[in-house]
């Protein structure tokens, strides 16, 4: 359910108030972009997906009845737009300098270890890209975005059991796809890494 404040902005946006919709955009912009980045794989595509998502949302804002959280509705649009983009492109183009891969963190670890961890994240991003559409989307929503299974079920239109199974299967496949040293490095990774700026 939308918060009362969000409901206010929604009502005004439904009435055609762009400023009110702008508030909603600013509220969800980063989250939508982050999801788009992990689904699309490149920053440029993530920008395109984000813009298209909010454009679609604006055009269909009257169809959002407010029974669910706004972010689940936006996430559904994001997933659809990202999937459409990938299908159009046929081939996923990722930046050479993958924006998803964090920069090495030398805080408290040796440069060698930091480089290993960065490489491990590079492997992880590649393994994630190697998953099927449904597994990758579900895994990104569940683990990277940490959306509850119930909300994922609402976003993807499937049961919570299906979400759970996809997550379990994706875990298994990710482990199979990752080299052992990458897994070891991920296990030793610090709680946070330095985000790679753009």
């Amino acid at each position: 359910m939308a918060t009362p404040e969000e409901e206010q902005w929604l009502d005004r946006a439904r009435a055609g108030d762009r400023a009110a919709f702008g508030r909603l955009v600013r509220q969800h912009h980063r989250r939508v972009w982050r999801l788009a980045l992990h689904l699309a794989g490149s920053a440029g595509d993530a920008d395109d997906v984000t813009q298209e998502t909010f454009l679609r949302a604006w055009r269909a804002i009257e169809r959002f009845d407010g029974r669910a959280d706004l972010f689940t509705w936006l996430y559904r649009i994001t997933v659809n737009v990202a999937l459409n983009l990938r299908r159009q492109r046929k081939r996923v183009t990722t930046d050479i300098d993958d924006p998803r891969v964090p920069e090495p963190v030398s805080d408290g670890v040796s440069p060698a270890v930091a480089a290993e961890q960065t490489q491990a994240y590079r492997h992880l991003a590649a393994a994630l890209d190697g998953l099927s559409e449904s597994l990758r989307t579900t895994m990104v929503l569940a683990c990277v975005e940490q959306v509850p299974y119930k909300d994922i079920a609402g976003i993807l239109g499937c049961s919570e059991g299906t979400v759970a199974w996809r997550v379990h299967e994706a875990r298994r496949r990710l482990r199979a796809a990752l080299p052992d040293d990458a897994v070891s490095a991920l296990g030793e990774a610090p709680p946070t890494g330095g985000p790679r700026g753009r």
Partner: protein
Amino acid sequence: MDDDLRLKIAASLDAVADAPMDPAVARALESDPDAVAYARELRAIESALTRWPTPERAAAEWDARAEALLAALGPEPKGRRRSGVEARDPLAFPTFDDENPMESQPAMSEPNDHDPDLDNLTALTRTSLGPGAIPSTPPRSLGGSITDDIDDTSSGLVDIKQLAEMARKEAEAEAAKPAPATREVPKTQPIAQAEIEKKIEAKSTKKDDVMVTPARAASPTVAEPPPKRANTGPLWALGGVALTAGAFFLFNGTRSESPTTPAMNAETPAATAPATPEATTAPAPTPSAEPSAAAPEPAPAAPAEAAPESAPTPAPVVAAPPPAAPEPAPTPAREEARARAHHTTTTAAAPTPPPPPRAEPRPEPHAAREAPRAAPATTQAAPAAPAAPSRPAASTGAAGGGEGRPQSIDELMGRVAPGARPAAPAAAAPAAQPDLPERLNRSAITGTLAPLNGAVRACAQGQTGTAPVNITIGNDGNVRNAALSGQFAGTPVGECITGVVRRAHFPQFRNPTQTVMYPFVILPPGPGGR
């Protein structure tokens, strides 16, 4: 270690401390170092995913992009033609190329023009009088088996108009043939025929276009005197009706027992179970949580088997209880645990899905939800054994009733060192066990603490920052002390965080104690964060 166990371990990663665990996973984690290592690897991957850093932009850049985005808002251009992929409605549920079409189960209230369930249901319930019920080919003679006319796509219902037409044509064909002179009729038949004729005559007074009574003179079948000759046209029709009715019931009987289509048969239980909350709350009739068709190994859930196997299991000896009295779980952490438990009950003991019709089978949520309910009965016998560990109450979870519960996967992962032998005696203190590491390495510490990020974030209740915790760990793996510094020190959030940390359980080591400083970095909560 087979794929089944791997999948179960992957499913058990969602388990919270007080949730029952799949007995097979619990046994494997207690005795199989490979399983423990695999669980730790999965946990490391999961942890890396959850703390995946987000590329950041300057606030001004976000604002600029938002402004540009708002400037581009506008109505949908009219007359715009889209390609096939663009034609998909972005507001609808996503469809995946790799997905079994039967896998999606949209809510009933959601419109779905391509609902495969609906299509299958329509095909199954198509009436014989509906469009397409009458075959385009001419109706066949009644000769032979009438069931030959029922193809696989038929609903089993019979069109009475079609049947009457067939009977009439048959009667006309019979009338065109010369009557056989030597045909004998059983003695009872004329009587029966006469009775039937009377009934038919009585009914034929009500003329309709459904049942056509052939002319009496057309009866050629019996060489009898004219008054005694039976008009076999209606008889044929009645016989046809009787045969058809028999075939209908026979077909219906076999249809209800045999699968309609493989896809429907494979998908229906899984598809309907999650949508029926009552089904999930029904008590499990049997401790075995695994569907027999899907379980390549025998179900390990028999209570009589659980006790002998679990009793001699090496258990960590708690050298001394933690000095800090176990405090009740903080409210946010408890809420999160409940939220995760809700997920976990569907996943903690997820059985291997049945052989997939496609690459990715649907799970069996119904069985998976039954599994945790079945598990306590199977595992309660184990802690009753004398060798059962006396785990700190706090580590069993605040939900209580945990004495007979199986341990969480994190505890079990910490129980067996990667190189430990399965049946090693656990009577000796950790310091006396030579195979234990002298101290915990970084991997063991992060492997234990990183999974607590979610609970710590829940404690923060939306606040962000860093929560450095100085943790003193006993060589039995229990937390002796946890002291928080930083911005949350001395606040309810800090107490909540230290409570979460105190319930952590590390692998054993040889040194008496080890002190580590671990900074929990609390990021902004994700949307609806777990």
